[in-house]
């Protein structure tokens, strides 16, 4: 059987033109997807059934036992942390929010360690953006700033920018300029028309300088700014101003370096400045699959995109305080539910040391690094492969993912709904 127009569950591009060939309940071939997507579709070695850690042993348990364990753990906790969510569908995320609200816990998603700083910046200055198709059809200038699409979003270049055909571009490859800004000459830099190499930690200064130059104040700028010559900055500012439609795509090179969200704020303010001269947009290269969906769901349900603390019943939001890394490193939670992510692989060690001390339940199809810190792991269907639901693309376009396989695994949503039902019952008693 061949499933057409399947939606790739790997990165925030959510490519929806994938063909998946399935034989005897296994994916045997994937067409159109990049290497990352293909591997994800072909994934094997799933965990077979829920497991419970007893001393230094793993014991198989039933789904009912596992769900009960999780519900009891969360009900008993004084400050439970519900973390992850980017690897699952909106429908499951909604149940997660309802759970956090009911048990007065903290709910955070992986954006706190990817584009959380971008959100903080947007909350200060807004976000002039657009859907990916607008860029594909119109942009004659694309800037990748601190992002490396060849490695992280391999089809971004071919579907939307460098190699994409566009309605208003006769010859997209020739008519569209690509600039890459980074601290190292990545592979993406090799296919750019211009590469701006910045000293590590210098993005903010370069962005400020560009803003001033766009305003016609080049004369006050020092001869070099973070390793970039004034001449190059002036040239780039002119390229931007003379473009008909410019688009900036920024990545973790801006969100993870010194200044964090202030870098993004500066980039957005540069784009707002350029908007006085020509059309310019800016967008984040959202990484993990449905991470943008977790922001959307959390926002319409709680008012905030991530890092929401319901300890006091009402929603309190303060990244840096109510975000997962901070809470774990400061040992400020006493139980954790992990869904659709692998914090043990992605968080600093100090966070893991606390995970080792508190009860942890994880929903994940595979054994992963976090498994080692679990008291219980519940294997679930792979979202976007054997479970269908809603995911939001990096530009906010919501797509319903297709189920390409059927399996006996419960989806995240189903497992969470069972937990939630038990918890509601307990609270009503």
């Amino acid at each position, binding site marked *: 059987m061949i499933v057409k127009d399947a939606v790739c569950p790997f990165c925030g591009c959510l490519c929806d033109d994938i063909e998946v060939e399935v034989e005897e309940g296994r994916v045997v071939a994937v067409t159109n997807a990049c290497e990352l997507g293909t591997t994800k579709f072909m994934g094997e070695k799933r965990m077979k059934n829920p497991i419970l850690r007893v001393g230094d042993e793993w014991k198989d348990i039933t789904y009912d036992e596992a769900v009960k364990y999780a519900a009891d753990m969360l009900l008993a906790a004084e*400050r439970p942390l519900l973390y992850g969510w980017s690897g699952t569908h909106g429908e499951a995320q909604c149940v997660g929010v309802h759970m956090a609200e009911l048990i007065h816990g903290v709910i955070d998603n992986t954006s706190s360690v990817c584009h959380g700083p971008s959100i903080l910046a947007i909350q200060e200055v807004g976000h002039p953006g657009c859907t990916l198709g607008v860029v594909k059809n119109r942009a004659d200038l694309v800037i990748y700033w601190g992002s490396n699409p060849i490695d992280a979003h391999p089809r971004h270049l071919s579907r939307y920018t460098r190699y994409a055909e566009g309605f208003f571009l006769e010859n997209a490859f020739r008519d569209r300029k690509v600039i890459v800004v980074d601290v190292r000459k990545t592979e993406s830099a090799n296919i750019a028309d211009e590469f701006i190499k910045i000293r590590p930690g210098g993005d903010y200064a370069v962005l*400020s300088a560009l803003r001033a130059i766009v305003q016609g104040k080049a004369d006050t700028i020092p001869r070099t700014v973070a*390793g970039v010559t004034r001449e190059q900055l002036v040239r780039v500012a002119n390229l931007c101003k003379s473009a008909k439609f410019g688009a900036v795509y920024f990545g973790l090179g801006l969100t993870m370096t010194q200044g964090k969200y202030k870098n993004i704020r500066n980039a957005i303010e540069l784009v707002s400045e350029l908007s006085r001269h020509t059309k310019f947009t800016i967008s984040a290269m959202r990484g993990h699959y449905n991470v943008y969906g977790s922001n959307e769901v959390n926002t319409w349900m709680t008012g905030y995109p991530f890092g929401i603390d319901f*300890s006091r019943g009402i929603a309190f939001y303060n*990244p840096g305080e109510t975000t997962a890394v901070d809470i774990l490193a400061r040992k400020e939670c006493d139980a954790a539910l992990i869904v659709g992510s692998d914090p043990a692989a992605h968080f600093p060690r100090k966070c893991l040391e606390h995970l080792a001390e508190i009860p942890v339940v994880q929903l994940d199809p595979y054994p992963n690094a976090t498994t080692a810190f679990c008291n219980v792991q519940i294997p679930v269907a792979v979202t976007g492969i054997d479970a269908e639901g809603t995911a939001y693309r990096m530009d906010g376009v919501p797509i319903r993912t297709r189920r390409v396989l059927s399996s006996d695994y419960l989806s995240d949503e189903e497992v969470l709904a069972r937990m939630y039902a038990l918890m509601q019952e307990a609270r009503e008693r």
Partner: protein
Amino acid sequence: MKVTLAMKPAAKWFIPIEAESIVPKNFLSGTDLRVWRGNRELRLDEVFSVSVEGDADRAEDVEVVLSGDTFRLKRVGEYLDAGKITVLGGIGMHCGNFMSGGTIEIHGNADGWLGREMAGGTIVCRGDAADYCASGYRGGRKGMKGGTVEVFGRAGDFLAESLAGGTVIVHGDAGDMTGAEMRGGTLVVHGDCSRPAANMKDGSCYVYGTARGMIPTFKKIGTVQHDGRTLIRFSGDLANRGKGNLFVKGYEYLD
């Protein structure tokens, strides 16, 4: 009246306690107050040994003294408008948020967001203050609007972010993005700091040490004498069409 709150040891000592009820005026009507440890509501005396000496009719005459391991105690002195809070050790996040009057004195270190969005009154911190001292809230347009915050140790990153009024003085070094988005008020750092006054619109920022990673979009005006020091005066942030004043003893660009 003097109210002494001595923190009791707790089993789950790491769960933060929110104690916005600890403001002097609340003690005028007794000590039957509530605090929250995570999602559990607790009586004040479940968390503290409470003792009261003397009495008072008005908040101005109340002093609250906190002792013990209070570094996880959040929101103490929120909306303080009169009276005094003395913290013998360290204090947790959000101490003195929204305060409009009165005094908070901290003998140890203060955690993040000390004096966030304060409008008046005085905070003195004898130790270090962590990030976002005297700052604003997420997405907010204005930070601290009035009053004084004085830190005798060091301050963390984002000190006085979006400062709109009042005075902030740090005797030690400050961290990165000191005084970012300033739009008014006065910020004084006696030591060094990194990237001061980035994107400032207005206000005055003084750095008596060295400004590292100096933002390249400030215009040098000349030197001035200030408080017996020779400082270099800049105007900016040009990138933000700002008209602020930045005075530094020395500076280094990231060139």
